[in-house]
């Protein structure tokens, strides 16, 4: 049975829909209201507050902490400066991705890692010969993701300039209601946003201070359903949905590499050896078999599918994650869409997909499977970059 997050006393009061799910062993809210739409619009037009505590969290400290993380991660973590955060992934010896997450450098020899899956064992296995201490701090800290264009104002209200001046992928250590917190300017919505780490014991006062300050900013508690739509718009891959960790895959073809998932920018090849380096180098030289792309449905054609049955067009209620095959014009399967959503902001029906590199050029027309009135058919989509929504304010 899942456990409660340290914010549960508040979130359980607010979750009138009673829509919960198990996220990494925690109770997590799908949507506070029966429908997630308001929460989605809070993310995009005001601010949403999400309990992100279930992320796996590790503190890696000691003289060799940077060396260990550089060995495990695709990025050279020794180059990460104190006060900065980086997004990266980690691979097995064959260069196949195992998970993705962030690394924050809190001090010279102190780092914090977030992961979607349990990673303690993997870090420890690779740390045998290093002077490091690796601690699983998943339950020690609560995380609140405060995301949306007004999030800066809210946090500025409770923390002052330490936060309003905080740049993209930087962190600051400050206080909220006299409780120590670490605030990173990161998030999973593709918008301006922050993640606030506090001791689990301080969770409720920190939650209260933020929600109180948020009253003047139309802050809403937001759940995972709204987040899922936002992350599809932002083109962020999700472990277990858009790719599968290599240590769960029974067959090779199900594994992916960072290059195949559009995460090649996180791979720094020309440095000290790291796990998967030689295979990733080969792939870089050879070229990847797969590309991660966005698919934009041809709305007119999509509407026509429904019109044949005298129906109005129906888009999925929220984000979907049941894979759909993708075909070229001749009907040959060239990939699969792994998740998608109707974007209320962009007014587009979108999907994220892995397609063969030969079919990944932007603007290329492909077909995606669609089922209307129990009839399985195909409808045209246009290949685009996966990052559909990328506002200036995210980085600015």
């Amino acid at each position, binding site marked *: 049975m899942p456990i409660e997050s340290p914010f549960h006393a508040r979130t359980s009061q607010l979750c009138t829909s009673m829509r919960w799910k198990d996220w990494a062993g925690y109770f997590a809210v799908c949507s506070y209201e029966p429908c997630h739409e308001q929460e989605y619009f809070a993310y995009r037009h005001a601010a949403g507050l999400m309990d992100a505590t279930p992320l796996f969290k590790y503190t890696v400290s000691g003289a060799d902490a940077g060396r260990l993380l550089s060995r495990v991660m695709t990025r050279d973590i020794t180059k990460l400066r104190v006060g900065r955060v980086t997004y990266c992934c980690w691979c097995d*010896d064959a260069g196949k991705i195992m998970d993705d997450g962030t690394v924050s450098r809190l001090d010279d020899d102190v780092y914090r890692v977030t992961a979607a899956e349990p990673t303690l064992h993997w870090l420890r296995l*690779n740390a045998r010969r290093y002077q490091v201490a690796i601690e699983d701090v998943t339950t020690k800290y609560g995380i609140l993701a405060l995301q949306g264009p007004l999030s800066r104002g809210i946090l500025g209200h409770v923390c002052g300039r330490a936060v309003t001046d905080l740049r993209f992928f930087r962190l600051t250590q400050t206080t909220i209601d006299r409780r120590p917190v670490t605030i990173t300017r990161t998030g999973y919505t593709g918008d301006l946003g922050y993640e606030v780490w506090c001791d689990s014991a301080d969770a409720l006062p920190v939650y209260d201070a933020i929600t109180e300050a948020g009253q003047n900013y139309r802050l809403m508690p937001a759940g995972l359903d709204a987040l899922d739509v936002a992350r599809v718009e932002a083109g962020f891959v999700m472990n277990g949905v858009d790719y599968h960790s290599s240590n769960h895959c029974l067959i090779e073809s199900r594994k992916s590499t960072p290059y195949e998932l559009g995460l090649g920018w996180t791979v720094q090849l020309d440095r000290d050896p790291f796990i998967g380096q030689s295979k990733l180098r080969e792939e870089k030289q050879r070229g990847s078999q797969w590309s991660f792309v966005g698919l934009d449905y041809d709305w007119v054609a999509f509407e026509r599918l429904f019109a044949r049955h005298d129906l109005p067009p129906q888009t999925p209620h929220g984000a979907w994650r049941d894979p759909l095959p993708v075909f070229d014009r001749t009907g040959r399967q060239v990939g699969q869409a792994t998740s998608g959503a109707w974007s209320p902001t962009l007014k587009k029906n979108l999907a994220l997909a892995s397609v063969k590199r030969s079919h990944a050029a932007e603007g290329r027309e492909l077909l995606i499977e669609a089922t209307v009135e129990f009839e399985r058919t195909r409808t045209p989509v246009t290949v685009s970059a996966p990052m559909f929504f990328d506002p200036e304010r995210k980085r600015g």
Partner: protein
Amino acid sequence: MNSPVLVLGGDSNGLTAACYLAKAGRSVTLLTHGPLGGLASRHEFHPGYQSPGVLGETSGLRRSVVSDLQLEQHGLRFADNAGVLAIGPDSTIAITNSRDATTESIRGVSARDADRYREYFQFLDSVRAPLTQFLNSPPPDLVDPSFTDIRGLLMRGFQLRRLGKALMLEVLRLAPMAVYDWMDEWFENDLLKAALALPAVTESYTAPWSAGTNANLLAQQVTGGNDVVGDGLALTDALVQAARSLGVDIREQTVASIDPGRGVETTDGESISATTIVTSLDPKTVFLRLLRPELLDHGFEQRITNYRARGLRSQLLLAIDRPLKLRDETPANRLRLVSSLASVERSFDPIKYGRFSDEPSLEVYLPSADHPELAPDGHAVAAVTIHYTPYDLAGGWTERSREELTRLVIQQLGERLPDLADTIVGHELLAPPDIETRYGVTGGHVFHGEHSLDQLLVRPTPECCQYTTPFPGLVLCGGGTFPGGGLTCAPGALASRVVAK
């Protein structure tokens, strides 16, 4: 390719590889951590008394190495009639190179076993050819076999088949067996069974009832020949002379780190460039201590970590004020103090729980007849090997646990060798961690890794089972490679072929 070669390790395998490569025209520099000979080298353990080393037994030395390197011209001689004296609670058996003499000695305890001993060796003779051929050839790559590997495997299979169906099936039956069962099939006398089987079980975290131990026994019996006069130390001396005469540049320097394909750093701060590095150091030392961790793939690091090298042997060095008197007619300078295979098994049991037995199995080596220089005039040295003592003793190897083990061993020696106790004037106990420190072998494992079935053919890991490593220019040539540890010189000779290619 004729580039210079850097050999790391001055033990018998390092020296052998250095000699072969120098003979093939390569310019060879050899770095040795301590005195040449490694586990078969001297050190003073008591004022005026020197140890003969931890490894002395040379019956597995490959004759091909002796002839290739002309070791007999460098002073090596084989003893015609040397061997082991098994001393039981109430009887003794001399097992020497002379089958007739051994048979007669066995007849003293069992007429049936004396006859069976002849048949036992007739059987070993009948299967010797394909097995020695197998043990003297580079191992096949079983994980990712090339055409040559497959052809080699087929050839080995064919040679085995030529024995005839019955013998072939018998060999296939024997390898995975426990020595206890096989010895039981042949003999009735407990002392004889234990004396023959002891060397097959002691370095592998196994005991007579452990499955797969028979493979070791077979390997040792079919490759065993006459001992070298002067044992391990004499072999070391001959190899050193051969190496020097072939122009090998021998330096006493300790390696601090290896940068494969580039060279090494020594502990005295020197950088030595070398594109080809051949090392007889144990695999765990090479990959987990001398190479930066970043260089290793996770899976490879995991496999090397899992490679088992848990030292079980301690050595009690005794300085004695007069040579030990044995039965006059016995040419043996090695004694095995055992009672039965069951007693060996009992001496093994406690190590599973981090303890040593109250009645350890003992072997005594008396080197002074061949090496009077080890002790002052009229005095002698005895090296007692103690099986089994765990590397990671529960509570640690404290002064107290060392004293307890020493007391136990001396008491036990006194029961079988009553003359010995009064002659002891000094001693030193080398527990597995001491062997690790003194000789630089991980876990204090004298064979550079256990000789269990899974670690014999694919040794130490699939990536390195044919001496090459995942790192171009870095080649293994020590006991941690096929066909294993001991003073055989076989890994050194086989590995040098890989480099020569």
